[in-house]
């Protein structure tokens, strides 16, 4: 009797879905292999959950600081009133001014105090918190909603998310907004976060560091923890602009206030920049001449983008690049560059070949054979069978053919006719 075939280890469940999703867009993957693939895929969705959460935390911190500031002012005001010997009229006026201050919180959108009942209620600031918390929830729901029935739609949505992410990073904001709106993706993409970055980037491109410095101040503790020197670099550039304008005394004052504190950790850079005072802006000395070039502002923009992505837990590369590289790496084999590469393979196209050029070849533990007739993979469930003429086709295709032709097999490539019983099973190494 025939021996049972050993498993060949060709388990497609372990294949990252990113490759198949972006390369083949398989509309109906088998139910049993879906969840493991999805699990692998979610490893790339870190940013999807992290960004709105970081945004939420940032809003919470800002609101908390504002409330604390106002409350401490009011409490100290009340303490003063208690300590002072005020007339009844003065006391009433003082308390009225404190109430007005608390109502100012209402205009800022945080809290309002009813004069009689001191009831707290959340308004604009809490509305922002609420919206961001809701966005986190929407994304969790979205990830949970992925299942076999709607996988095609889910993958389509993800494709659009990835494209919006790419457009935002490349500063194509208007296009990103249009795509997000037309596909109803607003809660699934980070347009508002990138709008924040856009303001800073636009200013830097106009040689204005103020919004970037404000951003650094807002995120001071986080940047310090990650040992960022973004603020230092902005300060250096502003110093250089003062030297360029030959505003030397202001440059010195600026250096004493904003650069000297960084001397303990960045002395070499500090010294190099301060020395421009001795050389002026038209120096031919290459070490210092480079500091006056316009491209220094481009470096600042790049540096800011990196810091921004890091702070929000985003990948430094666009998701589109990551998915493309993962997919092309999985598909790339020496065979791709041969003339008889199949047309179904994306790497049969010049554009994809160019993109894949710097990427490594995929590591193939086992050969993968695709049936000439059905185009399906031949594996342990659908093993290859060999005709007497040496050609190999899948079991399913041959069984189907035998049923239609009274047990006879007609080779599609040579026309050979033989009996189904003459076939020999092949094993994939």
């Amino acid at each position, binding site marked *: 009797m025939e021996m049972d075939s050993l498993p060949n280890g060709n388990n497609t469940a372990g294949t990252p879905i990113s490759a198949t999703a972006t390369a083949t867009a398989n509309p109906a993957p088998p139910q049993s292999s879906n969840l493991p693939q999805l699990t692998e895929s979610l490893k790339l969705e870190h940013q999807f959950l992290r960004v709105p959460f970081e945004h939420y935390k940032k809003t919470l911190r800002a609101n908390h600081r504002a409330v604390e500031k106002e409350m401490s002012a009011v409490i100290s005001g009340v303490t003063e009133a208690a300590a002072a010997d005020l007339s009844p009229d003065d006391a009433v006026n003082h308390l009225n001014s404190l109430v007005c201050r608390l109502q100012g919180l209402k205009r800022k959108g945080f809290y309002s105090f009813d004069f009689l009942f001191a009831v707290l209620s959340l308004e604009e600031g809490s509305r922002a918190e609420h919206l961001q918390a809701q966005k986190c929830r929407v994304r969790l729901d979205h990830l949970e909603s992925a299942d076999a029935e709607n996988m095609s739609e889910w993958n389509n949505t993800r494709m659009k998310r990835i494209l919006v992410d790419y457009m935002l990073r490349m500063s194509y904001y208007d296009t990103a907004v249009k795509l997000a709106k037309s596909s109803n993706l607003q809660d699934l993409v980070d347009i508002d976060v990138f709008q924040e970055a856009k303001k800073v980037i636009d200013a830097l491109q106009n040689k204005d560091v103020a919004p970037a410095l404000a951003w650094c101040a807002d995120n001071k503790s986080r940047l310090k923890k990650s040992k960022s020197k973004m603020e230092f670099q902005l300060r250096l550039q502003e110093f250089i602009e003062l030297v360029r304008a030959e505003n030397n*005394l202001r440059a010195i004052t600026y250096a004493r206030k904003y*650069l*000297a504190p960084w*001397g303990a950790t960045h002395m070499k850079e*500090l*010294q190099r920049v301060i*020395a421009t*005072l001795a050389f002026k802006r038209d*120096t031919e000395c290459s070490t210092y001449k480079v500091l006056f070039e316009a491209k220094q502002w481009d470096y600042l923009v790049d540096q800011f983008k990196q810091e921004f992505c890091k702070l929000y837990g985003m990948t430094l590369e666009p998701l589109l690049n990551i998915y493309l590289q993962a997919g092309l790496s999985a598909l790339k084999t020496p065979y791709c560059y041969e003339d008889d590469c199949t047309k179904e393979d994306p790497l049969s196209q010049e554009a994809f070949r160019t993109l894949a050029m710097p990427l490594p070849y995929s590591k193939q533990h086992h050969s993968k054979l695709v049936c000439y007739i059905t185009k399906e993979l031949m594996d342990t469930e659908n093993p290859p069978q060999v005709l007497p003429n040496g050609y190999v086709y899948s079991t399913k295709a041959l069984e189907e053919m035998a049923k239609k032709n009274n047990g006879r097999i007609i080779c599609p490539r040579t026309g050979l006719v033989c009996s189904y019983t003459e076939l020999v099973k092949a094993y994939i190494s």
Partner: protein
Amino acid sequence: MDLDPRQYENLAVNDNDIHNIVLSYLIHNCYKESVESFIACTGATQPADYLEDMDKRKRIFHFALEGNALKAIELTEQLAKDILENNKDLQFDLLSLHFVELVCSRKCTEALEFAQTKLGPFGKEPKYMEKLEDFMALLAYKEPEKSPMFHLLSLEYRQQVADSLNRAILAHLNLPSYTAMERLIQQATVVRQCLSQEAGKDAPPPFSLKDFLRS
């Protein structure tokens, strides 16, 4: 006869030699009154040529030591034009002293102009560029004395520059740049090291002037 170095304590030294060593030290460091007193007491030969320029050297040295570099430069050039022209390192150091004086006096505008006109041209050479960066960084601190570059404002630094200037002038006058005392101490140190290597575990301790003077 060859003497065993280990018997050096038995070696008799001529009084005249000792007098010359002391005199050399006093002359090198411009101790004019001490020189005159020493000669009067010991009856040593009057080295007439030494005394001629000592007054000038003394004034130059003291101007440098107190940080008045421009005056030191002026007097040095009066003595001989090419001393500083042939020694750019020394020239840079003296000009730097002046820059430091301006910074310490909180004269930022003058310091800036001086840096641009006098120090900037040195920046084309890497060895001066690094030094220049150190000096310019002093401008970034309200209190340069408390900055990481505080050593540039110290007496030790001025002493070092003044010493270099003194040696350059002596060399120009064809006089020894180093005192006999310095050479003797250097040689004694080296000889003691060689003896230590030969003698192994019986080696005498390394030469130390401080220990020697205490013994």
